[in-house]
């Protein structure tokens, strides 16, 4: 143990008057971690990222072009918002492309366990991106956000596949209109 106050009983006031440099320029733990996450990002070839403001790494877009599975040929954009409490809290992810998918609703909410109940600080932006890619390869009817799509997927895979293609070409599935998102 050091004896804290033998050293500095008087000097505090002098210091306080002294320098105030580089005051608000302290890096946050979130920024330290995010710089690391992004510098080491290893994207699958179906994914790319875009930063609307290159100085703001906390907000970016992920663009996925699945090369197999039901969604082959489509292009889907997700927005990522990383908060200051990252990595204590998961990044917020929304799907900006309207998609016919059991785990993504029409407002763009994404049902991915590691984004909510199973998030852990050891996970990275890379883990989230792989999780999202996996949703396109293996849509999961057990955890539905879009209940109608989930029901079709579990009862009639052919019909589901046709619905996906119809939605990606641009058109109606049931009463819902989907914008074209084929590349």
């Amino acid at each position, binding site marked *: 143990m050091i004896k*804290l106050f033998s050293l500095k*009983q008087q000097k505090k006031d002098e210091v306080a008057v002294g320098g105030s440099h580089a005051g608000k320029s*302290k890096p946050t733990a979130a920024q330290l971690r995010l*710089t690391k996450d992004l510098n080491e990002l290893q994207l699958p070839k179906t994914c790319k990222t875009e930063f609307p403001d290159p100085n703001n790494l906390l907000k970016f877009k992920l663009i996925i072009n699945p090369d197999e599975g039901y969604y082959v040929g489509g292009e889907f954009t997700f927005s990522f918002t990383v908060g200051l*409490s990252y990595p204590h809290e998961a990044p917020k992810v929304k799907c900006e492309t309207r998609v016919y998918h059991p785990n993504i609703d029409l407002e763009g909410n994404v049902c991915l366990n590691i984004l909510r109940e199973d998030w852990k600080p050891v996970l990275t932006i890379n883990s989230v991106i792989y999780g999202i890619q996996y949703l396109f390869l293996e849509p999961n009817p057990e955890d539905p956000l879009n209940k109608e799509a989930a029901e079709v997927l579990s009862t009639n895979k052919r019909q589901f596949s046709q619905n996906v293609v119809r939605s990606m070409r641009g058109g109606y599935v049931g009463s819902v209109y989907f914008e074209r998102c084929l590349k």
Partner: protein
Amino acid sequence: MEVDDCDDGARWSGRWNHLQKILERNGPFVHPDFEPSPDILDFMLNSCKVLVVGAGGLGCELLKDLSLMGLRHIHVIDMDTIDLSNLNRQFLFRQCDIGKPKAEVAASFINKRVKGSKTFSHFCRIQDHDSSFYKQFHIVVCGLDSIVARRWINGMLISLLEYDEDGNLDPSSLIPLVDGGTEGFKGNARVILPGMNACMDCTLDLYPPQVNFPMCTIAHTPRQPEHCIEYVKIFQWEKEKPFGDIAIDGDDPDHIKWICKAASTRADEYGIQGVNYRLTQGVIKRIIPAVASTNAVIAAACANEVFKLATSCSIPLNNYMVFNDTNGVYTYTFEAERNEQCLACNNTPRNLSFKPDALLREVVDFLCQDNSLQMKSPGLTTTIEGLNKTLYMKNIPSLEAATRPNLSKSLKDLGIVDGQEVIVADVTTPNSLRFKIKFNDDVTSS
């Protein structure tokens, strides 16, 4: 030596007798380095500056304990105003204070009640002050309900640490942090000596994770009233925009009423009971019920640690005490260990000397060529005037293209100042490294 000061009405015979007995005599349980002296009491009364962060449940207790104990130069910072629901335990506030800033009302109450106290209030966010403010204190005590705020204070105190050429900590740059936290009948008190023992970020996994319900449960298989409230919060608010395109304000009764009504409708559909205004506000604001006696116990433990640190009369808590009186009374103290990988404290910045007109490319080349670094593809970011700036990111094509022109700019033109901290990430190290750019006119590298 005469220890009573000259403030009018603040001196009466024997006021500090109890402290003098401890501070002016030796004993078998004192700190090994303790030397009894009247100077210590003088330091406590007249020099020691303490910052209390938060003027809520813990903050009121702390202000009362510390000022009655003889610490008279206390600053208190809180961004909140007083709400009716605070009054049962935040005893420095009265009904007529509702709506006023907590810090201001608390400080003026203490100054009026405790003779000789000079408590200053700061009605603002902790982030509104910079290092020159935090530097003036001998000890910081936190009574917060937010992990983000705790980590911010922790990071601030770590950033104030100074090291000599050999990397040894300058002890006079160290400001101890005493942190209290309560949650219902549970609480904890801890002593953080930044740079010396486990910091807030070292033990981040000790904090309970935020309760998040699976999205599909909320959407399709709600079973609890909380699920219904979360549903309205996540899905309906954004879709229906009842008050226009604004975020939910947990303190706006109209917002809570609307959410409560919508959640009740949904609960009825699923035959779920228990949605009411109180629960709704609790879920939206993530309120954890507060127990006044827990606050009192934890604040007392924290105040005791402040006293020990301020006077060195006894060995401080090492370093984490948990308290739980849900069933019986249970306490346990353990030594939280430093995390070798901690982003906040095990990462002292290394100095790099460059000329102000050196190009960013020279810095990148140095990081790759220096024998002790040998980086492969470093990514560099920094913070200028509170705003993040990406200096160079090689790995992400869109960012590389956007930041490539920076390589040909001088450090000065990029807005980098002497002493600027730069974050560097590279595959060769498990965490980002921090570097301090020191401007130097003679040498190119350290």
